[in-house]
C-alpha cells in the first residue's frame, strides 16, 4: 500500500505546510511518510512543489510518479501532469478535468488570508481519501494553533464542497504511528540528546531551520541559541563556550563553513571539542541555494591549515541524522576534536517519519581532570587525550593556545615539542580508527553479488532500489577516518560495485579507489535534484 501526492503552487501558497499537514495526518494513521520539497530561492511567486509519499513500510525517498496531483495553480498542473499515474486524480480549482473545489472563493468569503487556500485543499484531499471530518478537525486543531477556528471553518466548507466521491480509502494502519521530523530537527535533537548546551549559527539555507528550531524550543530543550554577526563569530563563540565547558555546535552550509575553516584549524590545535553541521547545497559559491548536492565531502574532510584529526559523519535520513549528531557531540568531547556532520538539503529539509532512538545514543562524556598536582591542559597522555578542567576551577589554571604549545599550554617553538605534540594529537586518530572502522559504522544489507554503495542522502532511494533488485546495500556513515576495513568486509563476496552520488566528480568513488576498492560503475547526478526512486533504479538496473 503506497500513496504519492504532489502539491504544487506558487511560493507563498503554503505548499510545504500543506504537504507537512498531510504527511502528519498520514503518519498518525500509522503510515510511514517521506516529504520531498522542491522550491526556488525566492519568497513569493515562482513554482514550489512538495511530494508526500506514504507507505506501510519505512520510506525515505520520493517517487517521480504520483497518484494524486493537488494543483494550487495552473502552472502546477502543466508542470506535473506527466507525473500522474494512470487512473490518477487531479485536485484543484477551475479544472477542465479532475475534482475542482472553489478554494479561492471560500477563503475570500471568510475574509481569510489567501494562504489559507492550503487548508481548504487539505480538507478536499481528506474528503477524497475518505478521512472523517472529525479526524481532520482533530489534526487541524493540533497542527494549526494559530487562527484555528478560521482554518477550521475554511476546511469544513471545503470538505463539504468537495464532490466526486471517494477516490481511494486509506485504512488506518495497525502499526504504531511514528512521529515526523525534518532532517534538521533530527540533527538538532540528536545533539540535544547527547548534551548540547549552545547552538550558534548565522542563517544559511539549508541549515537555517536548525537555528529556527532551537531558537524556538531552546527554553524547553535547555539550549542557548545565538544568531551572531557572521559565521566567523559563530564558530569562535562556540569554541569559547566549549573551552568554558559547554558542549556547543554550529551549523551552516558550504559558504558559511568556508568562513569557519580558520577556526576549525584552531579547534584542531587547541583540542577544543566542537560539532559543525554542514548542510550541502549545489555549489560552487552561491550556486543553487535551495537545491541539493553532495559536493563538499573533500572540502570538509581536509579543510583547515595544518594537519589534525577530525571526524566526518554523513546521515542519509532523519534517524541517522539524530544518531550521528548525538555521536558527533560524543566523539567531539571524548576525543577533544572537531567533528563534522555532513548533511545536504535533501536530508535537512525533507520530512521523515521515524522513532528516534532516544535511549540508544551516547551521552556526552569526557576525560575529566581528577585534580591533584598541577593541571596541564595538554598533558602528554599515552592515548593523546589530556584530562579536561575548565576555567573557574580553583585548583587549575586552564590555558588553551592556537600556537604550538607545551603541556601547560604555553607557546613553544622547540622542535622536539612540536613533534611530540603533533604525535600526541594524532594518537587520537588511532583510537578513532579502532572505534569507527567497524561494522556498526557501515550499513550493509542484503547478500547479493552486486553492491550499490552510497553515502548521505542518496541512501533514501538507493536502499529501496537495492532491495528491489536483490542487491547488496552498503553505506558508510563515517567518511573520515575512512572505514576501509569495514567497507571491505561489507563488500566481501561482491563482484560488482556500483556507486551513486549527487555530485560531478564522484567523491565516494575516489575514496573507495584510493583505499583499494574497485568501483565498476559510477552513477552521478549534478543538476541540483536528488535521485527519485524510479530515476535511480532506471540508471543502475542493467549495469
Amino acid at each position, binding site marked *: 500500500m503506497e500513496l504519492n501526492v504532489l502539491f504544487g503552487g506558487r511560493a507563498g501558497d503554503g505548499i510545504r505546510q500543506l504537504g507537512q499537514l498531510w504527511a502528519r495526518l498520514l503518519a498518525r494513521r500509522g503510515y510511514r511518510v517521506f516529504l520531498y520539497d522542491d522550491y526556488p530561492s525566492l519568497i513569493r511567486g515562482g513554482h514550489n512543489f512538495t511530494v508526500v509519499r506514504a507507505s506501510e513500510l519505512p520510506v525515505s525517498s520520493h517517487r517521480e510518479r504520483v497518484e494524486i496531483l493537488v494543483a494550487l495553480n495552473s502552472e502546477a498542473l502543466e508542470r506535473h501532469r506527466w507525473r500522474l499515474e494512470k487512473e490518477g486524480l487531479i485536485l484543484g480549482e477551475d479544472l477542465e478535468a479532475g475534482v475542482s473545489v472553489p478554494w479561492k472563493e471560500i477563503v475570500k468569503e471568510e475574509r481569510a488570508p489567501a494562504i489559507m487556500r492550503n487548508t481548504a485543499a487539505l480538507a478536499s484531499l481528506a474528503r477524497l481519501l475518505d478521512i472523517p471530518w472529525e479526524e481532520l478537525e482533530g489534526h487541524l486543531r493540533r497542527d494549526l494553533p494559530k487562527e484555528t477556528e478560521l482554518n477550521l471553518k475554511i476546511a469544513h466548507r471545503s470538505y463539504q464542497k468537495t464532490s466526486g466521491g471517494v477516490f481511494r480509502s486509506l485504512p488506518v494502519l495497525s502499526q504504531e504511528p511514528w512521529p515526523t521530523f525534518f532532517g534538521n530537527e533530527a540533527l538538532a535533537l540528536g545533539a540535544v540528546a547527547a548534551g548540547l548546551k549552545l547552538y550558534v549559527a548565522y542563517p544559511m539555507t539549508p541549515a537555517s531551520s536548525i537555528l529556527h528550531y532551537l531558537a524556538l524550543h531552546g527554553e524547553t530543550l535547555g539550549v542557548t541559541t545565538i544568531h551572531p554577526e557572521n559565521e566567523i563569530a559563530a564558530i569562535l563563540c562556540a569554541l569559547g563556550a566549549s573551552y568554558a565547558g559547554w558542549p556547543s555546535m554550529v551549523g551552516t552550509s558550504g559558504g558559511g563553513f568556508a568562513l569557519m575553516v580558520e*577556526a576549525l584549524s584552531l579547534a584542531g590545535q587547541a583540542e577544543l571539542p566542537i560539532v559543525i553541521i554542514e548542510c550541502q547545497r549545489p555549489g560552487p559559491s552561491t550556486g543553487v541555494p535551495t537545491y541539493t548536492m553532495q559536493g563538499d565531502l573533500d572540502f570538509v574532510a581536509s579543510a583547515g591549515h595544518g594537519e589534525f584529526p577530525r571526524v566526518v559523519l554523513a546521515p542519509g535520513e532523519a534517524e541517522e541524522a539524530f544518531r550521528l549528531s548525538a555521536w558527533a557531540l560524543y566523539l567531539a568531547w571524548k576525543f577533544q576534536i572537531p567533528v563534522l556532520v555532513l548533511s545536504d538539503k535533501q536530508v535537512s529539509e525533507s520530512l521523515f517519519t521515524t522513532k528516534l532512538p532516544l535511549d540508544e545514543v551516547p551521552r556526552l562524556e569526557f576525560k575529566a581532570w581528577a585534580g591533584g598536582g598541577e593541571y596541564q591542559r595538554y598533558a602528554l597522555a599515552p592515548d593523546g587525550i589530556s584530562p579536561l578542567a575548565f576555567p573557574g576551577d580553583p585548583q587549575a589554571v586552564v*590555558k588553551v593556545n592556537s600556537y604550538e604549545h607545551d603541556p601547560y599550554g604555553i607557546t613553544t617553538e622547540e622542535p622536539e615539542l612540536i613533534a611530540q605534540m603533533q604525535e600526541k594529537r594524532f594518537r587520537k586518530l588511532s583510537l578513532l580508527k579502532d572505534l569507527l572502522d567497524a561494522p556498526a559504522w557501515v550499513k550493509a544489507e542484503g547478500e547479493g553479488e552486486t553492491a550499490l554503495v552510497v553515502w548521505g542522502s542518496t541512501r533514501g532511494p538507493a536502499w529501496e532500489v537495492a532491495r528491489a533488485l536483490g542487491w547488496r546495500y552498503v553505506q558508510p556513515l563515517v567518511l573520515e577516518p575512512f572505514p576501509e576495513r569495514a567497507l571491505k568486509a561489507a563488500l566481501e563476496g561482491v563482484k560488482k560495485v556500483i556507486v551513486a552520488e549527487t555530485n560531478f566528480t564522484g567523491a565516494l568513488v575516489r575514496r573507495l579507489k584510493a583505499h583499494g576498492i574497485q568501483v565498476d560503475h559510477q552513477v552521478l547526478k549534478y543538476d541540483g535534484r536528488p535521485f527519485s526512486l524510479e530515476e535511480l533504479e532506471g540508471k543502475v538496473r542493467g549495469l
Partner: protein
Amino acid sequence: MLARAKDPLSTYAEITWCPGCGNFGLLTALKKVLKGWQEEGALSRLVLVSGIGCHAKIVDYVAVNSFYAIHGRVLPVAWGIKMARPELTVLGHAGDGDAYGEGLAHLIFAAKRNLNLTLVVHNNSVYGLTTGQFTPTSPKGFKGRSTPKGSPETPINPLELMLASGATFVARGYAGRPAHLATLIEAGLRHPGFAFIDVLQPCYTFFNTYDFFNARVKELPPGHDPTDFEAALRWALKWDYSQEAQEIPLGIFYQVSKPLYEDLVRVSPKEPDLEEHIKRLHS
C-alpha cells in the same frame, strides 16, 4: 611548575618583547589588577583571551586561565566563554590590528549587544609582530613596510566608533602610566556590560611614540561626567589619532548602564524531557 616560585602571578615563559616596549607597562598594570583579584581569592574566576601579535603574548606571561586565540577573534571567543559561564570575568587583550582591522566587526557588535566583557586594546598603531605595517589607527603618511610611501588612509578614532556603536564603557589609557591604566582595567572589569579600553602603547621598534604621548596625555578633568554622551564624544574628538594634537585625554570618557545581552539570551542548562517534547511537537 607553571608559575614562577618568586612571583606566582607569572609563568616561566621568557618575555620576548623588545626592551622598551609599551607592553611592559601594560603587563605591570595587568599584574596590579591580578594581584587584587588574587588577594580576594578570585583569580580563578578570571579568564584572559588574546589575539595574535606582540600584545597577545601577555597571556603566556601570567599564570591565569587563558585562551590564546587567533588574529582578530578575541571578542567572539570571550563572548562564548561568558555565555557558558556568566560567573566568570572575561578580559580580552587585543592588538589594534586585531581589534580594529581583522576583527573590527566583532568590536562594533560587542558594543551594540552590550556583552558583559572587558576589552583592552594594545594600540601601538602598528602591526608589531609582523614587523611594522600600518594599522587602522596609524596616522596618514605612516611609513610601514606595506606603505613605504606613507599610509594613504586616515586613521579611525576607535573611541568615536565605540560611542557610535552603543558601548556602555569607553576609556583610554596609556602604557606609560600603568597605575592609572590599572584603575581603568579594574573599573572595566567591574562594569556590568561591555567595557572598552583603548591603550596607547608605544612600539619601541616600529613606532616609538613615547615622546609624543608623554608630552600630550592628560587625564580627563575630575568634573567630567561620564554619563554625558555628548561630553564624551567631545572629549573623544579632541584627538583624531593623527600625529598632531595639543592634548590627548585619558580616563573614562563614558559609562552608563544598559541591559546585559546575556540576561536576555542565555538559557539555563537543564535536562530536557525529549520524549515529552517529541510527543507534544512531532507526533
